[in-house]
């Protein structure tokens, strides 16, 4: 289970998270939505210790992430796959070498087992035969899928997706959404998806939370969010800036 409780994070004068709380139950898929620059990726990075909160609690499997020793943090990271917004593939390596990185670090695999895992992961994301290609040779959608393959190659318990569908065409977006559901159903992973694509959030999530001004403004099932009464939430999900302005004015 992932828990973030009353997390505060600022960069200089800029307050990004201001009492942010969110939890993801075992086996569930939660989407965190919000405006660009709202702090969604910042929240995600706290879960794997890439950022430390100024105050508040971040727990994964009951372990307080900011309090973990370096070795314990690396141990925790072996349970978490992270899919980056722009894939963050190592551009000097082939796709197979990218996927092998996590497996080599985890240890205990023979060369054959590593090759088998790489092939299996690439097949799952529908990139059969891409082992020897370099990231520069891939399209945006293929890069995202390769990033997902790298994240699942070592069999993580949790998957964190940072804007997995941003910048993709509707068909490729649907492919990525299908893969997120496939990872949940076939691998049983617990997922947290950062997105501002509501169509994608409705398709893949059990629950959706909206981040606004550093806090979760509304949380619920996809249907509850779709029918939310809060003007900012409605304005966001329906793409109506006038509702957002009205809600912001009311909020003061």
């Amino acid at each position, binding site marked *: 289970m992932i828990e973030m409780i009353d997390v505060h994070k600022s960069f200089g004068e800029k307050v990004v998270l201001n009492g942010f709380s969110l939890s993801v139950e075992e086996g569930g898929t939660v989407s965190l939505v919000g405006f660009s620059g709202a702090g969604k990726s910042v929240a995600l990075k706290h879960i794997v210790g890439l950022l430390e909160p100024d105050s508040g609690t971040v727990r994964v499997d009951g372990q307080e992430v900011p309090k973990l020793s370096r070795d314990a943090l690396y141990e925790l990271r072996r349970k978490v796959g992270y899919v980056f917004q722009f894939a963050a593939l190592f551009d000097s390596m082939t796709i197979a070498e990218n996927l092998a*990185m996590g497996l080599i670090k985890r240890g205990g695999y023979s060369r054959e087992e590593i090759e088998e895992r790489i092939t299996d992961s690439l097949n799952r994301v529908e990139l059969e035969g891409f082992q020897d290609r370099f990231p520069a040779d891939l399209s945006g959608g293929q890069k995202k899928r390769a990033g997902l393959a790298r994240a699942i190659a070592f069999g993580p318990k949790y998957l964190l997706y940072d804007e997995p569908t941003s910048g993709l065409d509707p068909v490729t977006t649907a492919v990525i959404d299908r893969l997120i559901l496939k990872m949940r159903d076939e691998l049983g992973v617990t997922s947290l998806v950062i997105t501002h694509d509501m169509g994608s959030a409705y398709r893949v999530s059990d629950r959706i939370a909206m981040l606004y001004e550093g806090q979760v403004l509304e949380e619920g099932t996809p249907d509850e969010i779709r029918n939310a009464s809060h003007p900012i939430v409605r304005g966001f999900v329906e793409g109506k800036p006038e509702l957002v302005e009205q809600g912001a004015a009311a909020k003061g």
Partner: protein
Amino acid sequence: MSSRGIAWTRPFAAIGRAAGGFFAAFGRFGAFFIEAIRSLRDVTTWAPLLVGQMKKLGVDSIPIALFLAGFTGIVLALQASYTFTGAIPLYFVGTLVGKTMILELGPVLTGLALSGRVGANIAAQLGTMRVSEQIDALETLAYNPVAYLVLPRVIAGILMFPIIVIFADVVGITAGWFTAINLLDMSTEEFVRGLRLFHDPFDITYSLIKMTSFGLIVTIIGCFEGFTTKGGAEGVGIATTRAVVTSSMLILVFDALWAVVLLQP
């Protein structure tokens, strides 16, 4: 406070901000350096990458170092001859070429050239990895990025820069000898006599000590600037420039420092 009073304080505020910025950067560099030392224990991460970096940063830098050293040796021999103008025996050309190449120009010119070639390369590569989240990706895959990216480069620099300077010294002196016997009407015996006249084996040790420190400076500054890159392509450009400028300045500072520490009678 009057506007006149505010205007008076501005220069002091600017100096204060600059000083604060300098000490903040110095503190960040100190923390980075300590982290690099702590990461040494992660041998299984950095050791397999060391040979590759020794080739990339060291072996591949030899041509530029030899090119510089060769032309420096030629110029040294000709300038020595021009300066002596018959008042000093010509075999001192060998002395000047040997001493200057080994003690000063071999290490310093090679160091400055490599701060451009190696330091800029490291800063640009790691800076690009930083802004494209590849360093974050390494962390999420449970790698210590300092052990994986920094240590192989820094250790390769420390090991390879002294080897490069040995080649540079030899080529520089050989170029000086070649110039002396072909353009200055000197014999090989005269050149070698001058070369051996004030030679002290410590000169070579001094050259190697300097070059080892330059290897550390160029690589650790390149890594630090790359790791702390912010923004996109512009940030990478700024980091690369800063890596070259800072390491070049530190090479000159340490050049003077080693002279004070090791050459004072």
